[in-house]
């Protein structure tokens, strides 16, 4: 095996997977607290990238302030999404609530289009636009920021979930919402906080990844879909599995394109998802049982 090629596929796959992982964690946490799959999750990544780029390049803000500004935008929009679009339809059937998030996704895309225009926006690398080498493979230095930021955000997420009152409240809500309410958890307030934090985290992911992949008003769909796949692999319950799912999708994409065919990349990703769902859904077990039943009573 060509080690350089292997590393050249592995490392960018991890970088892309990190972004999917962050989106996937956002999906899982929002779903556990609100019971709704937030299909606008990818748009916060897009908005974070666009806002940070616009603030830093066009408005001339220092990079740190531009990123904080983008996170603020993400947090505000996340909180508004929950307060203005999900809270009013809380008692509606789940498909109405999910459809509402699709509407928010389209509105956010339109908002970005009108505000930032159609051209892809870029952002300078946080430590310059240099590269580093690992076993002959070349990586942009910015990748280190993506990995570091992902680790930091995930560590913070797990730390908050495990060791803080808010985290315990989130976990309680995900286990039994009614019981959590009876124990004094303010679920409405908690949802707003979780959506705001999720929006800010998505925006940060977008800002960090923009120096590598640019940002464009229509980029959120791709992040959203791949992050959604990661969340599905995580069973929409475990943030840790969602992280593994997101990074796994990034790796399958990279290795699929590198070792099989770049033209088959999406086919492979969604093929793996389908296979995973069928296996997890018990297709082999159910299939075996049906086969055994058919053998036992062929006339049935």
């Amino acid at each position, binding site marked *: 095996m060509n080690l350089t090629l292997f590393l050249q596929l592995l490392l960018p796959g991890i970088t*892309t997977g990190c972004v999917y992982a962050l989106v996937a964690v956002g999906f899982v946490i929002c779903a556990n607290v609100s019971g709704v799959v937030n299909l606008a999750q990818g748009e916060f990544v897009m908005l974070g990238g666009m806002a940070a780029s616009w603030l830093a390049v066009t408005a001339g803000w220092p990079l740190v302030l531009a990123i904080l500004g983008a996170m603020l935008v993400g947090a505000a929009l996340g909180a508004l999404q929950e307060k203005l679009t999900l809270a009013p339809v809380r008692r509606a059937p789940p498909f109405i609530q999910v459809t509402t998030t699709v509407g928010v996704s389209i509105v956010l895309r339109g908002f970005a289009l009108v505000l930032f225009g159609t051209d892809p926006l870029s952002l300078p690398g946080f430590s310059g636009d240099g590269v580093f080498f690992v076993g002959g493979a070349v990586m942009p230095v910015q990748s280190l920021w993506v990995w570091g930021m992902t680790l930091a955000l995930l560590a913070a997420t797990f730390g908050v979930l495990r060791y803080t009152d808010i985290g315990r409240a989130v976990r309680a809500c995900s286990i039994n919402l009614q019981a959590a309410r009876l124990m004094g958890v303010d679920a409405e307030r908690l949802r707003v906080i979780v959506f705001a934090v999720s929006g800010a985290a998505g925006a940060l992911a977008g800002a960090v990844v923009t120096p590598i992949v640019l940002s464009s008003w229509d980029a959120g769909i791709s992040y959203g879909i791949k992050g959604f796949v990661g969340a599905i692999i995580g069973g929409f319950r475990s943030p840790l599995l969602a992280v593994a799912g997101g990074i796994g999708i990034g790796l399958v994409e990279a290795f699929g394109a590198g070792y099989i065919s770049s*033209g088959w*990349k999406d086919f492979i990703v969604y093929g793996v998802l389908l296979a995973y769902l069928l296996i997890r859904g018990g297709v082999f077990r159910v299939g075996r049982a049906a086969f055994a039943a058919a053998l036992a009573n062929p006339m049935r």
Partner: protein
Amino acid sequence: MYYRFFAVAAAAMLGVALAGPASAQEEFHVGVVASVTGPFASPTKDTFDGFYAWEKTRGLPGKKLVLTILDDETNPVNSANAFRKLASDPTIKLIIQNTNSSSAMATKSFASEYKVPIISGGGLDALGFPPNPWMFKVAPSSTDSLHALSEYIKKKGYKRVAHIYGTDAYGQNEHAIIEKFAAEYGFTLVAEESFAIDDTNFTAQWAKIRAANPDIVYSSASGRSAILSFKTYKQLGIKAPLAATAAGVGGAFFQAVGGPKAADGMLSPSQRGTFAVTTGPAAEYYATLQKSLGHTPIYFNVFGYDVGLILEAIVKNSDGTRQGLRDALEKLKDLPCINGPVTYTPQNHTGNDYRAVAMGVLKDGVMVPAE
């Protein structure tokens, strides 16, 4: 969808605003299907800039041009719907497809149904040949562009060629032609890598290209794909020269990669108008366009201006009806345009031909003829 509404409204207002002050002049209505949003938005904007420069400096003598612009979001299905909507309006005499090849192809089959002449963007060969009686393509075919590239490859003695292309109609068409020319010109395709136009990671493709050790790489990427593809090529430190389709070299490309000088050395099979045109009638047009834009015109600026020149010529030589405009288009022979002479015949509706294409190279940020 809200964003579509905003985009269309904004584009329509811009079109009306730039159409000039109201007057008693006879109105001439033109419909435009444009990729105002989506991956092809940047080239579309550059094309509009060139077209508006033509309108400002020349326009239609004695007539007020009224544009109705619909956004297709760089989506062929939307393109077909927008086209049908425009073609159903009897006041619209002609439709301009300011889109990529895939969106333009989506309307080709409807052209005869609605009997409205179309001046179309897009490099895909099938847009102009075999011809639809009502559809007229301007850009030279991909065959003409890749003919220039293959001649260059042969002249340089390159034997190992890599190709990276999109999975859309344009990319697939370019790849089919490259495969055909490989045998004719005696080179081998050592890497054939594809991508979806909304991809954000091109490392796998470029890593395989680097591993194949080609003498030259040809990229059929345009829009955001062209930018990301170029950045990855640079990051991986690939030594083989890069040739890119002219469709990928636009204003947004240069802005994102750090200016035209950052792409120095990049080759492109370019239309003549990409170089400073200093001879013939096109020299005057080029100077006018440059002055109006306030900067050196890039490929799609020139393309937009040339569409205006074609429109001007056929309005002058027809009765202004749909049928009359179509007939006038088919009679155009060697109309001087910046990118090269435009000719249509009943047998071929590709306006520019091989005479409009030459290999160019970016030197000090300016595209000059390649040695």
